[in-house]
C-alpha cells in the first residue's frame, strides 16, 4: 500500500505526524444515528410497543367514554355453567350421591353457610340463568351416607292424584341424552309447578308412544335405582308404583307432587328429583368453586393517598355597607364591596395525605389532612392620608401608608373618592392564608376498570387558619387594615373533584381538576363583609394500598 519513498519526504512525514495528533469529538447525533441504524429490532420493538400502548389507550379511552354493554358478558357464564356441568358429568356421577343427599336450605340459610363474600356470590349468581336463582342448594354437610336417600324417599307422602311428569325431566334424570340443565329450564320446568308437562311435540321427532314408554321407563328406573339403596323398599315400590304412562297422549304421569325442599318434602316426583339433581350439579359446582377452590388473594380495602395541587385562588365578596344600605345607592355605588375592590386571583398550592377505605368496588370514603396556601391579589393606593384609622400601619417602601382603596369603575381602577388627598401610588397587595384542613369525603368510580378509571369525589373539610397576611376593609370601606382578630379561625369548606386515575403496579396515579369553596366567611360576624375563598386546582396524587 505504501510507497517505499513515503517517509523519504520530511514534509510528508511532518504532515502525517501532525494530522495524526489531531482529534475531533463528534456530536451525540452521530452515535444516535449509528445506534439506531444498527439496532433496528429495538426500534421496531419500541415502535410496536408504542403502537400497542396507543391502541390500548385508545380502546381504554373509548371504553371510558362509551362503555360497551355487558349483556353478552352476563349471558356467557350461564352457558358456561351448563357446559361445565356437561363436561363434569363423569366426575359428578361419581360424586352425586353426596350431592343428592345434602340438606336443602332456603336462600337465607345458604348465605349463612357460605364463606365467600356476598359480592362475589352476587357476581357469580348474576351470571347464571335466572331460573337457578329460585332455588339454592348448598352442601352444608358434604359427607353424608348415600343410603339416606332411601330414608328421604320413604318419608315422602304421595298425593292422591299424580301430576304429569315432564318427559324432559325424566330424560335428564337418566342422563341419556346429556341434555344440559339449561335446556330443561328452557322448556319450562319450574320447582313446584303442579302440572308441569311436556307433550311429545316438544320433544321433536320422537314417536309419541315410544317416547312416552321410554321416558316412563327411564323415570321409573331412576326411582327404582334410588329406592333400592334404602331399607324400606316397600315404600320405594310405592313411589315407583305411582308412575304411570299414558300412551294415548304420550305423557308420563306420577302420583306425586314435586317438592322444592326437604323441610316440606311431602310431595315428590321423578321429574322433580331429576330436576333437583340437575340443579344440584350446578350448585355443587358453584359450591365447589366457592368453598373448595382456594380463595383468590384478598384485596385490601385501605389505601393511602398523597396529593399535591397547584391552585388558583380567588374570592367572592358579599355584604353591603350599612350606611349604603340605609341611604341606597350613591352615584351608582350600592355599597357592595365587590364594586369597590380591584382584586385578581393568584397562585397557591396545597398538599396533604388521606386514608381511603373502599366500601364497594366503586365507592370509597376518605379522610386526611391538607395544608393549603391560598393567595389572591388586591390593588390599592398608597397615600399618606391623615384620616387613616388607628391601627393602620401599612407603610410601603415609599413611606406612604397603604390605607386607601381602589375603586373599580368600568373596569378601570381609580382612587376612591372616600380617601383623602395627597400623593398616591398604586400598590398590589397579597392576601395570604395558611390553612390546615381535614377533608372527609368520598370518591366514586364512574367509568373504567381496575387499571384506568374516571372518578369523581366530594369532600367537606373543617379547616383551621394557621396564619394570614391579608388586608381587610375598614368600616365605611375607606381603608385597608390588618386586623387578625377579625379573621375566623375555624371554617369549613366543601370541594368537588374529578380525576383520571391509572394504576401502575401498586401505585395508582391520578390527575384532575378540583374546586373548593369556603362555606363560611373568612371574617367574623363583626364584619359586614363576607369573604368566601374559592380555589381552583389541578390535583395530582398517588394512591397505594396499605398492607
Amino acid at each position, binding site marked *: 500500500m505504501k510507497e517505499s519513498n513515503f517517509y523519504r519526504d*520530511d514534509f510528508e512525514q511532518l504532515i*502525517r505526524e*501532525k494530522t*495524526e495528533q*489531531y*482529534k*475531533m469529538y*463528534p456530536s451525540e447525533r452521530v452515535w444516535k444515528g449509528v445506534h439506531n*441504524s444498527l*439496532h433496528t429490532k429495538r426500534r421496531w420493538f419500541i415502535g410496536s410497543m408504542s403502537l400497542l400502548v396507543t391502541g390500548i389507550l385508545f380502546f381504554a379511552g373509548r371504553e371510558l367514554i362509551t362503555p360497551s354493554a355487558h349483556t353478552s358478558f352476563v349471558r356467557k357464564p350461564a352457558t358456561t355453567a351448563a357446559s361445565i356441568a356437561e363436561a363434569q358429568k363423569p366426575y359428578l356421577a361419581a360424586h352425586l350421591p353426596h350431592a343428592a343427599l345434602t340438606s336443602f336450605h332456603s336462600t337465607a340459610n345458604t348465605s349463612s353457610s357460605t364463606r365467600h363474600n356476598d359480592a362475589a356470590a352476587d357476581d357469580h349468581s348474576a351470571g347464571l340463568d335466572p331460573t337457578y336463582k329460585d332455588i339454592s342448594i348448598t352442601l352444608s354437610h358434604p359427607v353424608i351416607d348415600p343410603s339416606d336417600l332411601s330414608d328421604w324417599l320413604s318419608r315422602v307422602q304421595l298425593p292422591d292424584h299424580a301430576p304429569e311428569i315432564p318427559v324432559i325431566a325424566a330424560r335428564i334424570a337418566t342422563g341419556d341424552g346429556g341434555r344440559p340443565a339449561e335446556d330443561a329450564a328452557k322448556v319450562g320446568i319450574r320447582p313446584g309447578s303442579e302440572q308441569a308437562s311436556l307433550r311429545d311435540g316438544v320433544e321433536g321427532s320422537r314417536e309419541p308412544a315410544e317416547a312416552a314408554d321410554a321416558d316412563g321407563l327411564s323415570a321409573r328406573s331412576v326411582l327404582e335405582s334410588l329406592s333400592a339403596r334404602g331399607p324400606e323398599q316397600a315404600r320405594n315400590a310405592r313411589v315407583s308404583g305411582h308412575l304411570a304412562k299414558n300412551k294415548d297422549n304420550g305423557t308420563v304421569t306420577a302420583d306425586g307432587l314435586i317438592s322444592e325442599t326437604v323441610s316440606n318434602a311431602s310431595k315428590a316426583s321423578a321429574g322433580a328429583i331429576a330436576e333437583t339433581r340437575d340443579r344440584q350439579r350446578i350448585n355443587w359446582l358453584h359450591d365447589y368453586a366457592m368453598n373448595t377452590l382456594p380463595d383468590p388473594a384478598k384485596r385490601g380495602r385501605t389505601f393511602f393517598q398523597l396529593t399535591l395541587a397547584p391552585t388558583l385562588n380567588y374570592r367572592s365578596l358579599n355584604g353591603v355597607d350599612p350606611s349604603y344600605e340605609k341611604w341606597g345607592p350613591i352615584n351608582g355605588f350600592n355599597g357592595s364591596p365587590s364594586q369597590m375592590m380591584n382584586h385578581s386571583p393568584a397562585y397557591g398550592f396545597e398538599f396533604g395525605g388521606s386514608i381511603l377505605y373502599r366500601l364497594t368496588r366503586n365507592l370509597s370514603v376518605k379522610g386526611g389532612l391538607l395544608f393549603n396556601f391560598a393567595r389572591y391579589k388586591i390593588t390599592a393606593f398608597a397615600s399618606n392620608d391623615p384620616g387613616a384609622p388607628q391601627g393602620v400601619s401599612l407603610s410601603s417602601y415609599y413611606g406612604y401608608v397603604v390605607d386607601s382603596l381602589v375603586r373599580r369603575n368600568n373596569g378601570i381602577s381609580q382612587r376612591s373618592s372616600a380617601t383623602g388627598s395627597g400623593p398616591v401610588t398604586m400598590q398590589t397587595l397579597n392576601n395570604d392564608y395558611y390553612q390546615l384542613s381535614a377533608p372527609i369525603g368520598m370518591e366514586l368510580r364512574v367509568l373504567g376498570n381496575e387499571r384506568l378509571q374516571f372518578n369523581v369525589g366530594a369532600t367537606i373539610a373543617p379547616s383551621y387558619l394557621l396564619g394570614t397576611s391579608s388586608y381587610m376593609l375598614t368600616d365605611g370601606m375607606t381603608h385597608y387594615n390588618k386586623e387578625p382578630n377579625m379573621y375566623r379561625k375555624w371554617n369549613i369548606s366543601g370541594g368537588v373533584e374529578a380525576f383520571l386515575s391509572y394504576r401502575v403496579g401498586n401505585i395508582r396515579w391520578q390527575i384532575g381538576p378540583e374546586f373548593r369553596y369556603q362555606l363560611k366567611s373568612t371574617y367574623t360576624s363583626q364584619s359586614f363583609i363576607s369573604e368566601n375563598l374559592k380555589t381552583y386546582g389541578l390535583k395530582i396524587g398517588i394512591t397505594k394500598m396499605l398492607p
Partner: protein
Amino acid sequence: MTEEAILQGCLKNEAAAQRELYNRYSPKMLAVCYRFAHNREDAEDMLQEGFIKVFSQIHTFQNKGAFEGWIRRIIVHTCINNLKKNKRFNESLDIVHASGVQVREESVPSIVQAKQIVECIRILPIGYRTVLNLYAIEGYSHKEIADMLDIEESTSRSQYTRAKQMLEEILIRKKILTKPREKTDWLVAIR
C-alpha cells in the same frame, strides 16, 4: 475493556461494546473525515456512515492487522465514496493547474499546530486535498489512489505534487513554516 473484548462484544451486536469502540476511535476518525469533508457536518455524516459499515462488517475483520487500521480504511473509503457522489469533486480532479488559493492570515486559528495544519489542508482545492490526504497521510500509493478515484495514476501524481506545493505555500504564508521547502531546516521550527 480490552480491544478483544470490544471486538467480541461487537460481534455479538452488543450496544455497550459498540459504544466503547465508537468512543475509542471516533475522535481520530472524525479528524480523518474532516480532512476530506467540506465541513464538519459533512464529516460527521461520513463518520456515521463509516461506523455503520464498521459494525456491520466487523465479522470480516480477521485480526491480520491493526484494528484501528482496518477501521480507518473503511472510514477513508466511505469518505471517498461520499466525495465521488459530489459532481464538483469529480470535476476538480481533472484540473491540472489549480488557481492560487486566497489565504488570509486570520482564516486559520492558531491554537495548535496539528489543528493549523489540518485547517491548512482543508484550504486546498478538494481534488488536491483528497490526493494529498490519501497519499501523504493515509499512505495509499498513486496506483491505489487512481483506482479509488477512477483517475489516471499520472493524474494522481501531478495532483499530489501541486497539492504539496500549495500546502507548503499556505503553511509559509500562515507562518507555520518559516522557510522555503528547498531548505529543510524549517522543520526545526515546527518540531
